[in-house]
């Protein structure tokens, strides 16, 4: 790493610690818990962060690497003393770079004379089954399975090779020894274990690991394939919306995800704002949906941009598997799986942009794909916006808050203050006018720890990690109070 020039083009496709209910990471036993966070960037690199446990809260040796990604020192952490006071947050610690590797290289499609970007579109962790961690990373065409493992022991005392691996001169060997394993400095090894190539004609936009732990799906603009993690030369096509005549194409797939519990269910979203829940037990090719979630269009607000604005950029199942969270350009919506005719909750993320749609169309910002996430208890949803702002909505109260991920205005370990967009009425100090929003600073990618209130926000080439100090447990964050 260390190539700062390249880090500027980091547009993190982002993921985080994947801890499923099936995993045995006990919150009580903090010393064995490893929390990992992975980011992928436009340069095809993946950086894995590890949350240090209390026991290893030493000055991170890899901080210089971290600084190349994060100009700030790690924003997360509390001094040990405070941890004790809070009590239950035994394992809060700093996130440090755990490993960095080049996942994808730029490629060239000779048939079409087109470059294949190395940009990582998605990363997904697999549920942990042993000491090693596995993650899937994908660019536009190829999905790779990486194994991230630690090695802290090394065999020493070979008879025929010396310490550097060179073959010894036999004449110098006077006695035989049995090689032993000696502890060494912790080394993190990353190896590609599978390469799933040639499965997609169009650009892969989503990957999702199935709850069965054996299969995963990958979705491109027109097709969804299901793979077995162990088989790289074959995949099953489960959705194909490519029309026979490409001239009739009006809708593409924008995101897809498996149900967190039911290994036969998955959902995919479209550019027309519809969601389709498919059951793989019904047929091999799930072109016909089991359920179609669509909100009827409001005829009064129809404009030339209605369709573009309704295109779903991200879809996520809730942790309990009962709800869907979708993000379109202006709103975030929560859908109940049992009700297809419309969302049960709609949150306005940045409605003040509704009158600016033409300008946003002109500068292509209207095509930005924002992600959205649930918190661990499904009581809070979060999504990004412009000007380095991101929004959190408390589902119980319906209230939303705007926060900023920008190093100039936030210091490490400082409390995040809420921001406001000035849209009329009394203007308070610190309000930001709509016209002074910086549309180049967009928060597209983010993640929420599956158990705790720790969030990671990617803003261009920076990664911000925030933790709720007051209630770091499964309850919703205490918005407006201490959020580091």
């Amino acid at each position: 790493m260390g190539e700062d020039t390249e880090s500027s083009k980091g547009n993190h496709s982002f993921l985080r610690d994947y801890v499923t209910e099936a995993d045995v990471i006990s919150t009580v036993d903090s010393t064995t818990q490893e929390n990992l966070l992975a980011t992928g960037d436009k340069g095809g690199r993946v950086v894995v962060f590890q949350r240090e446990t209390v026991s290893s809260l030493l000055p991170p040796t890899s901080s210089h690497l971290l600084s190349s990604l994060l100009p700030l020192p790690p924003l997360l952490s509390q001094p040990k003393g405070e941890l004790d006071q809070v009590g239950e947050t035994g394992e809060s610690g700093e996130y440090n770079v755990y490993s960095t590797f080049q996942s994808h290289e730029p490629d060239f499609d000779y048939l079409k004379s087109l470059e294949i970007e190395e940009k990582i579109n998605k990363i997904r962790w697999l549920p942990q089954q042993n000491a090693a961690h596995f993650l899937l990373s994908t660019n536009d065409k190829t999905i790779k399975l990486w194994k991230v493992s630690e090695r802290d022991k090394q065999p020493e005392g070979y008879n025929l090779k010396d310490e550097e691996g060179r073959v010894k001169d036999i004449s110098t060997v006077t006695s035989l020894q049995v090689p032993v394993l000696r502890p060494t400095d912790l080394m993190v090894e990353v190896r590609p274990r599978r390469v799933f190539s040639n499965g997609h004609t169009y650009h892969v936009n989503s990957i999702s690991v199935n709850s069965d732990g054996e299969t995963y799906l990958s979705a491109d603009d027109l097709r969804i394939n299901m793979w077995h993690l162990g088989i790289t030369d074959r995949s099953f096509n489960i959705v194909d919306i490519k029309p026979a005549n490409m001239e009739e194409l009006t809708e593409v797939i924008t995101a897809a995800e498996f149900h967190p519990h039911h290994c036969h269910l998955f959902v995919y979203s479209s550019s027309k704002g519809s969601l389709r829940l498919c059951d793989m037990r019904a047929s091999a090719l799930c072109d016909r949906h089991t359920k179609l979630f669509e909100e009827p269009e409001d005829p009064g607000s129809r404009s030339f941009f209605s369709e573009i604005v309704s295109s779903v950029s991200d879809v996520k199942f809730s942790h309990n598997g009962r709800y869907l969270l979708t993000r379109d350009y202006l709103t975030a919506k929560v859908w109940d799986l049992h009700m297809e005719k419309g969302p049960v909750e709609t949150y306005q993320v940045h409605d003040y942009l509704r009158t600016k749609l033409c300008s946003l169309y002109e500068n292509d910002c209207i095509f930005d794909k924002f992600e959205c996430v649930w918190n661990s208890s499904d009581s809070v949803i979060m999504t990004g916006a412009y000007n380095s702002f991101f929004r959190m909505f408390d589902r119980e109260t319906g209230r939303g808050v705007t926060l900023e991920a920008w190093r100039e205005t936030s210091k490490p370990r400082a409390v995040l203050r809420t921001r406001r967009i000035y849209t009329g009425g009394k203007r308070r100090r610190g309000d930001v006018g709509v016209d002074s929003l910086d549309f180049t600073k967009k928060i597209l990618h983010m993640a929420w720890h599956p158990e705790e209130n720790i969030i990671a926000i990617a803003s261009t080439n920076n990664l911000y990690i925030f933790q709720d100090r007051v209630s770091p447990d499964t309850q919703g964050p205490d918005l407006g109070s201490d959020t580091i």
Partner: protein
Amino acid sequence: MFPKGTKRKFSDSREEPVAGGEDVNQSSLAAVRMLSSYSLQRQSLLDMSLIKLQLCHMLVEPNLCRSVLIANTVRQIQEEMTQDGTWQIMTQALSAANAAAQCSADRLVATEVLCRQTEAAQGEQVPKPFPVVGSEGCPAEEVLEEEEAAAAEVGMTMSTVSPQAPTSYLPGTFGMDPCWEEEETGEDDDDDEEEDSEECGSGSEGEERERDSLVEDTRTAEQVFGTFEIKNPAPSPDPALEELFSDVDASYYDLDTVLTGMQSVPKMGPYDLLESLSSHGPSPLSSSTSCRSDLNELDHIMEIIVGS
């Protein structure tokens, strides 16, 4: 924005002047102004969309989702314009030009714009074929210029069209700032052409203002669009080029297809969009020889256009 729900009461305002006095005239004039600004905005949106479809990264496959969304927007505008009757005007104009010209219809697109503008100054209605062809003259751009031709044709009925229009009109369109956030809701019009001719005063004023503000762009545009002129009026298609792109579906460039549904546009999937930029079907192409060499200029040109 652009609501389609409310029907414009244009027919009412049109009939009123007969009975009413100045008030009615003024209100109808205001209504007409609003309508024309809506159609101008819509036109601008269409232009912008077509540029977006055309302008894509040459090296990497374009984003299919974005292309599909833009194409759907174009289709939507087209449908509305068809309802308005604006689309018919354009197709008529082009088919008239078609009869006059030697080359195929879509070649005339760029032709139309410039010849119409020059003719406009002289008040003529019938366009002469003019051997100016966009080197990147792929259908998207052609349709783009068709739109401008239509708008230009409409503008032709205005006597006050500035003679310096030809090359400045294009950048004027491109550079038109979509400031319709402040605009009132536009309304549908039954007869765009008539209404435009009625509001010739305000409409051409607006255009002239734009032209004045883009005087420096004019010069640049002239240089820019000057490069679009083909050197050889009727070159034979380059056999090598033809062979290379022989598998390109020529129907893609069929004018009707382009006009009626932009149906080939969504076809601009990974394979086609690049081809549409760098290639042209053998049949429509008279400038295919120069298109390859002008590819680099295309980037430069587009930067200027979009930048302005």
